[in-house]
Every structure is written in C-alpha cells, then in structure tokens.
C-alpha cells in the first residue's frame, strides 16, 4: 500500500485503467475513450483532486487510493443516475472557476489553492459565472457526502479499497459481530 501517494496524471491514468478493468463489464454506461463508466478522463481527474482534499492521504490512505472515484463513477450508473448531469456540470464548473481564478484547471493547483477554492465553493462564494445552473455549495455537498460513502462504506460498493478506512478505525470485518451464542468470525457448523 502506498497511502501517502499523491497521484500525478500518469499514475492516475493507470489507476483509472486498473479500476475500470477490475470492475469488468458490470454497468454499461461507458463513454468513448474513457476507462470509466461515466466520467471522462478530465472529469475523473478533477474529481480525484477534490476527493483527495476532502479525505487527504496522511499516515492512512486518502480517498483516491481507497477508490472513491470508482465508487462515485459506479453509483452514477446505478442509484445516482439522476445526478449525472449534476456531476457533468459541476465538475466543469469547478475547472472553469479554477481557470478564471488561478489560470489552471483544479487538478493542477497547489494543494493550499485547492483547499482555498473548495472552501469558497462550499460557502457559495466562488467568484465565477460558472455556477448559473447549480449552486457550488450544493454540488460540493454532494461530493463531500459521496466521498464519505465511498471511503467509509463497505468495499462491496466499489470504494474503501481493502477495507482501508475500517483498518484505520481498527474495526474487524464485518464491523459488528453477533453476540452471546453467535460469533460470526467462526464458521458455523452444520
């Protein structure tokens, strides 16, 4: 595990390809030229930079390593289908805001600039005309919530790779045992 890794573009592309390959042919809403089910490469890169500020890597893995982008990509082709346009528009608006404020897309900003910009999005104070159809605070709220789901939720949903957040919290798997006469950690006989 390389939890402190901050992904450059090349490594990120590799991670994206691996994740998509691992997911197999599950959900068919794939777009041309992208290994993701829903995102374009640029969208996924922007989102990855956002989620790694929401849950940054430190002594434990961050959101990107845990597969949060994969989690969100998968849900957008499932239960969160209705939010596809929100993500498409929101991620575009994040980069547009970043361009007009710093002259670079979000993923290429310095870490402290990214944090600064995310705070402004959260407070609805991003000075840009990019947020006409959707408030930046609402979009940021979705990303924060979905990041928490992808990082702290069960690995079966496509995030929390190798149960990394549960290991961080020193939780057994599954996180709650049965009790008294029933110990799920032991196979049941008969």
């Amino acid at each position: 595990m390389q939890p402190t890794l901050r992904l450059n573009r090349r490594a990120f592309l590799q991670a994206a390809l691996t994740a998509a390959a691992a997911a197999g042919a599950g959900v068919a809403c794939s777009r041309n030229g992208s290994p993701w089910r829903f995102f374009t490469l640029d969208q996924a890169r922007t989102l990855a930079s956002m989620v790694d500020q929401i849950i940054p890597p430190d002594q434990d893995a961050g959101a990107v390593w845990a597969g949060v982008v994969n989690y969100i990509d998968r849900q957008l082709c499932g239960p969160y289908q209705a939010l596809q346009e929100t993500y498409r528009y929101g991620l575009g608006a994040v980069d547009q805001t970043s361009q007009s404020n710093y002259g670079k897309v979000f993923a290429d900003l310095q870490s402290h600039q990214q944090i600064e910009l995310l705070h402004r999005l959260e407070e609805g104070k991003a000075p840009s005309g990019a947020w006409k159809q959707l408030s930046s605070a609402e979009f940021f709220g979705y990303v924060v919530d979905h990041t928490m789901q992808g990082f702290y939720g069960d690995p079966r949903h496509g995030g929390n790779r190798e149960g990394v957040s549960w290991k961080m919290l020193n939780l057994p798997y599954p996180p709650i045992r049965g009790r008294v006469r029933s110990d799920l950690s032991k196979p049941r006989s008969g």
Partner: protein
Amino acid sequence: MSLKHVNAVIVGSGAGGGVVAKELAEAGRSVVLLERGKWFTPFDERKDDLRNQRTCVLGNAFGPDERNPRVYVDASGHEHVISPTHGAYSNNAACVGGGTLSYGAMAWRFMERDFHLRSTYGAVDGSTLDDWPITYADLEPYYEKAEWEIGVSGDDSNNIFRAPRKRPLPMPPLPPTREHQILNPAARRLGLHPFDIPMLRNSVPYNVACEVDAKCGTHNTVIPKAIETGNCELRCECIVREILTSDSGRAAGVAYYDSDGRLQEQSADVVVVSCAAIESARLLLNSTSRLFPNGLGNRYDWVGRNLQGHAYTGAIGLFDHETYDDLGPGASIAVCDFNHGNLGFVSGGMLANEFIRLPYQFASRTAAGIPRWGAGHKDFVRRYYRSSISVMGPMQEMPVFDSRVQVDPKVKDHWGIPVARLSGHRHQNDLLGTNFMSAKAEAWLKEAGAATVIRSGPISLDGPSGGQHQAGTCRMGNDPKTSVVDKYCRVHEVDNLYVIDGSVHPNNGGFNPVLTIMAIAYYASANLVKTRKGMGAT
C-alpha cells in the same frame, strides 16, 4: 376467475398484520395475508451499510423501490415528487415482517399517563391531543402476550416509572456493553434510574430468529405460526388498490395487483388494514364509492390527520478513552426519568445510548465544532470513532390536525394508484421538549466523563413528522366525529372494516412504538374473534 372467499383479508404483514394473521388463523378463521413486498430470509444477504432502513443512500434493501413515489409539500407550499430514499418520504420497510425485519427492536410498553395525556396535562393549543378510549390496564395482558410470544429480553426492574407489569420479561438482558458500564454509574450519580432496555432479541435460546438467532420480528415468529395452522395463506408482492364495498356499505374485500400485475379481487367477511400510518390512510382514502365519496372512514375528514412520529434529539460525548465494543446492537441502557412531569412543556421521552454507528453514519454526522471535510475531519473520525457515546431519545409529539396524509390528485404509482401526499408541520411543544431532553443527554454524558459534548441542534418544525415510527392517521376514539376507529380498532362507519397498526394511536408515547402496535393487534384480534363468531371456522 374469482378467488375463494375467506373470513378475513389482512393488508400488510408488519407488526400489526402479522399478529392479527396468527390470532385469527389459530382461532380457526380462514385468512389471506397480503404483503406488497417480498419474504426475505437470512440467506438473502441483504445486510448493507449504505442500503438499509437507517442509511438508505443507495436504496432501501427491504423496499419499497422507485415504483412507489410520494408527494411531499414543503413549508413554503412547494410540491416535490420524492422517491423512497428521500428523507421526507418516511419510509418503512416493505416486506414480510414490515419494519420488524430491519428494526432496532426496542420493546417498550407505553406508560399509564401516555393513554390519558389530555387529562394529565390539559388541552394543548394547536394540537388535537386527546385521551385514548382505552387504558394501560386494558392493554397490559396483551403487552405481556407480545413479550412472551415474540420474545423480549431486558430488565426494567430499576425503572421506577414503568407501568405495572404482572409478569417479568421472558429473557434476561444481554450482557452489558462498554457504553453501558460507563453510563450506568453516571446515571445513578445523577439520581436517575437506569435499566436494561427491553429488546425483541434473544439473550438465551428462545425463539428461532435471524441468522444468528438473535432478533425477533413478526416474519420469523407469528407469521410462520399463522401459516402452520393451515388457515393462513400469505401472498407476497401484492399491491392493494382499494377496499371494495357492497351496496349496503359494508366491506366486501379488496382489489389488488398480484405479483404478475394482474388485477385480482379477494372477497372476505372482514377486511383488516395494517399498512402503517401513511399507507393505511392512503388505502382508506383511495377506497371511494357512491356511499363513501371521500374514502372509507372519512365522513368527518379525520383519515390521514395527525400524522406523527418522533422528534429525535440528544447529544454525543467525546471521550479521552475508548468506549467502543463491536457487540451489537449497541443500545442497551435507558432512563425514563424524563418521560413525564417536566416543567414548561407536555410529556417528554426516554433517553438511551444509541445503536452502533457504522463508519459512514459517524463520518457523515455534522455538528457545529466538527470539521465537515479535510484533514481535520479525518482526524476527528480517526480519534473519536471508538471513543464516543451518543445518547438519544424520542420526544412524544403533540398531534397536529394539519399534519396529514392525503392522496395526490395527479401523481400515481407504477400501478396507476394515486400516491400519498404528505404535508403539515410539527408542534412548538416538540421543540421545547427536545431542547430539554438534549440538555439532559448532555448532562448524563458529562457526568460519564466525556471531555466534550455536542448537543443535537434545535429541531425544525417544518414539514410533517412520520418516519419509521409513523402513527396517528386513523385515530382510535369513542366519538365518530373526532376519530376514525372505535376502541376495538373497527372503523366507525363500516362494521366489518378494521385498522390495526400504529395509525390508531392518538399519541405515540416517548418510546419506540412497536410493542404497543403488537399489543393492540393482540387486543383487537381477541375482540374480533370473540364478537365475530359468524365468520365461522374453515
């Protein structure tokens, strides 16, 4: 081809309907039990941290699904068509067992005063608060029956506020959790009266229950017993469209769409509606005819009124040491010192430690003073996930006439049936009570040694209440002008139509309501069997 006539058709197989099915079937009556959802078994592997009754961000593992929208009217009057995962939907599991399949399983008896709040506290402005037409003593034998037949563990002997019981609980409490051991001495130092929460969970071998033989609901106790009699047929994935009535104004049966989407008619001597407060009201309102143009039981416009649930409140304490153990269900200790007799507002509620918070639930909880994201948030989760205790409780809500279920004039579900439309607001008393209770939760946690305590913020009074504890929409009462059913759960204006679920509660206690729903179901069934010998045996 018409279906074979039966003595009783019961709509809904949850806490109420499951009990009624067993009682009627054991008394020799022929019963058809209709359920809109499926019958899940432990082998269905539907445990899911993001798709369950408490955290349904990815859907509801036990239904209902997207084919079942509702309309929600917000405080400014805007209408929203919402799906079952929406917070305002007030979802309850749609499956055999209903909410009892996925509930926390606290098994509370209401207190004596909960049955005559109006006499105790007087009339309350802006509320339809009234006494029940029955007393605690009427229900006591049936509370006992529910505890012994479905299976309750716990020990409430230290609860000096409890209503008198003739028989102790059938099972001892589960061994105390770490949180219990921390909170128990603290409560005693404060002069409170802590005790082991009664739970519909096996602590010793009792009923055959879930996959670890732990939790009891109607799906794994009374419903299998009903079927074993040979007198009860359970039909799943059946969507009831309306209750059919005869020209003389009696219930004749129900029309429903079966699992293949075919319209069926099931005739019966007696119709029992047990769909929980929102869907029961919806079904009565959707059952219109020449004699009942406004729906069944609705001559005086009381069906769907007084929708209530519980206003939850409390506090979370952050400790310098670990408090966590991974022993479910987590909730184990409670006090009833604040259910009644508080100054400045009506009633109150019990306080208990919370069920185990799964990592996403903990991480997504926001409160003033906790960073919402970033390195600070991650540190917070890492530091306090295993070192925090949450004390919460359900405030007894004041019934509000304008908090209601209607049927929407435009929006229909997948089967073309008009959907429930929810509107209204909570009562000011709920805010006063929750503010008081969260302060008491804070004091308890501080006494227990929490370094920091974060109280729940003030509740919003916008929008109707409801949720899993939904109740009140078909009030029980003696006066047909101010209630929907009589003291035996029979609809005032239709002598062979019954509503048997939380809908009939005039008020909902400062407690999780399931054991009261079960007790009322036993009580109403006993009367039904006694007074309707004419239904005949099969």
